C-alpha cells in the first residue's frame, strides 16, 4: 500500500495535505482503536492485573499438566493440518498452474467455492458425513465393510480432516501464484539438457515455488492454531484446543483473568509468527 513514487511524482499526484489525510483516516483510527486495541488491551491487562500485578494466571498455563497437554495438542494438530494441506494442496496447485482455458476455470472454481462458503456450513457438512448415521458410515455398512457404525465424529481425527478441508484453499492459492510466476522456459530448458520430468520438477520447479509454500504453510498454521468453530463443533469435549479452551473458560467458567492469559499466549505466538514471516505472507480471500 505504500506509495514509493519519487518526490517529483508526488507533487504531480496532487498529494493530500497532512490535515486532509488525517481527517480521512480518522474514522478508521477510531474504529480500530475502540473495537480492536482497547478490548484486546483490556483482556490482556486483566490477566496480569487482577487487580494487583500477578503472573499467577500465566504460570498456571505451564504448571498444570492438563493445560500444557492442550497446548501441545493444539500445536501438534496445527502441524499435522499444515503438512496434510501441503501434501494435498501442492499437486492441485501444480495442475492448476499448467491448465488453460475452460479446465483452468473449472479447477479454480473447485478451490474457490469452498473458500467462499461459510466455515460453519462446512463444519456442519463434516458432521453430516461422519456421524453415526452419516454418509461415510452408511456407505461402509452398505458395502459390507463394517458391521457396526464406526465412531468417527467428535474425535481428534475428525478435527484434523475437517480443518484440513477448511484451510486447504489457503495453501493452494499462494503455491499456485508462485508456480504461475515461474517462466515455463526454465522447465523446457532443463528437459532439453536431459533432465526427466521428475528431475526437472525437483531441481527447478519445486525450489522456485518455495516462497508460495512458505506463505501457504504459515497461513494454514496460524489459522489452525486459533481456529474455534471447527474444533468446537467437530471435536469432542476431550479434544479441547487452545481456542476452544479460551471459549470454555469464558462462557462456562467466567474465568476472565485465565482466559486473558490464554488469549495473550495465542496472540503472542500468532503475531510472532507473522512478524518473522511477514515477507512471504499475503492476505485476503482475493489472492
Amino acid at each position: 500500500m505504500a506509495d514509493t513514487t519519487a518526490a517529483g511524482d508526488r507533487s504531480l499526484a496532487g498529494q493530500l495535505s497532512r490535515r486532509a489525510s488525517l481527517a480521512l483516516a480518522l474514522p478508521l483510527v477510531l474504529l480500530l482503536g475502540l473495537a480492536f486495541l482497547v478490548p484486546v488491551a483490556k483482556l490482556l491487562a486483566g490477566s496480569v492485573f487482577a487487580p494487583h500485578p500477578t503472573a499467577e494466571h500465566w504460570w498456571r498455563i505451564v504448571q498444570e499438566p492438563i493445560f500444557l497437554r492442550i497446548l501441545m495438542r493444539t500445536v501438534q494438530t496445527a502441524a499435522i493440518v499444515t503438512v496434510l494441506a501441503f501434501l494435498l494442496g501442492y499437486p492441485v496447485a501444480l495442475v492448476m498452474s499448467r491448465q488453460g482455458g475452460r479446465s483452468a476455470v473449472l479447477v479454480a472454481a473447485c478451490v474457490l467455492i469452498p473458500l467462499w462458503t461459510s466455515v460453519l456450513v462446512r463444519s456442519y457438512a463434516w458432521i453430516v458425513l461422519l456421524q453415526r448415521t452419516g454418509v461415510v458410515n452408511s456407505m461402509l455398512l452398505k458395502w459390507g465393510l463394517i458391521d457396526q457404525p464406526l465412531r468417527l465424529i467428535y474425535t481428534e481425527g475428525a478435527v484434523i480432516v475437517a480443518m484440513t478441508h477448511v484451510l486447504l484453499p489457503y495453501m493452494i492459492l499462494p503455491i499456485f501464484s508462485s508456480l504461475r510466476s515461474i517462466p515455463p522456459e526454465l522447465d523446457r530448458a532443463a528437459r532439453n539438457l536431459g533432465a526427466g520430468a521428475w528431475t526437472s520438477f525437483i531441481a527447478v520447479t519445486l525450489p522456485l515455488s518455495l516462497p508460495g509454500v512458505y506463505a501457504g504453510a504459515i497461513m494454514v498454521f496460524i489459522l489452525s492454531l486459533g481456529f474455534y468453530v471447527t474444533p468446537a463443533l467437530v471435536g469432542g469435549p476431550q479434544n479441547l484446543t487452545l481456542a476452544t479452551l479460551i471459549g470454555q473458560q469464558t462462557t462456562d467458567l467466567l474465568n476472565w483473568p485465565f482466559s486473558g492469559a490464554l488469549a495473550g499466549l495465542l496472540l503472542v505466538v500468532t503475531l510472532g509468527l507473522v512478524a518473522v514471516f511477514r515477507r512471504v505472507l499475503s492476505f485476503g480471500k482475493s489472492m
Partner: protein
Amino acid sequence: MSIVSEARNAGERRHFSAVRRAFVRPGLGRWFLNGFAGLVLVFLLLPTLIVIPMSLGDASYIQFPPKGLTLKWYQLYFSDHDWMAATWFSVKIALATTIAATVIGTLASFALVRGNLPGARALQALTLAPLVVPHIVLAVALYLVFAPIGLTGNFVGFAIAHTMLSVPYVMLTVSAALQRFDPALELAALNCGASRAQAFWHVVLPDIAPGVAAGAVFAFLASFDEATVAFFVSGIEGKTITRKLFEDIDYNLTPVIAAVSTVMVVVSLVLMGGVEWLRSRGSNRKL
C-alpha cells in the same frame, strides 16, 4: 571397447532414455498427478455441496442417500419465527457493516495511498491485524468490553464489531485499485478547476468503482458468514443466523439446518460469482 564408442553408446542410451522420458514416463506421471489432484478437488467440493441434497430429503434425521424429495425443511425455515428473526438480524448487520466498512475503508485507503500521513506504516499494519489475530481472541475481548455497556446481542454492537473485522478486505481491494489509477487524471481534473471532492467523486471514484464494489461484497460476506465473534457477542434476544446455526448444530440436528446452510451457500456463491464477473470484465476492458 574404446572410450569414444562407450561415450557414443552412453550418448545413445541417454538419448533413448530422454525420448522415453519425454513420451512414456511424463505421460504416466501426468495421469497420476491429474488423478490425484482430481481426488483432492472432489474432497474439497463434495463436503461443501453435500448440504444441498441433504436439505431436500424427506426423513427427519440425516439420512444418506436421502429418500423422497421435499421442500418442507425450507418451508419450516421460512415460517419459523426464531430463524427469520436471526436471518433479518444478520442481514441488517451485514448491510450496516457493508456501508460503514466501505466508506471508512475507502476514505482511509485514499489517505494511505495518496496522503501524507504520520505513522502510515503503523496504521497499515494495524489495519491488517484483524485478519491475522485469531477471531477467538477478538470475540472474547469484545465480549468483555461489550457486556457491561449493554452492547451484546445488540445491533450497534454487532455493526461495530463486524465493521472492524471487514474493513481490512475493503482496504486491500480499494488500495490495490487506487494504486493502479493514474494520478495524472486526477491532477488534470484539479487543473480544470475541480475541487478535491469533485475530482474524487467524478474522476477517481468511477475508475476505482470495481475495487470498491468488490470490497463491499467481501465486507458483506465477512459479516454475514462470521461465526466466532457472533457466537460470543450474541444475546438471548439478538442472535445472528450463524449463532442460531451454531446452537442448532450442537443441540438440535434437524434437516432445517441443511436448508439454512444451503441458503447461506447460495448467498455466498451468488455474491462472489458477481465479484469474479466484475473482475473478468475489468481485465477484458484493459486488454
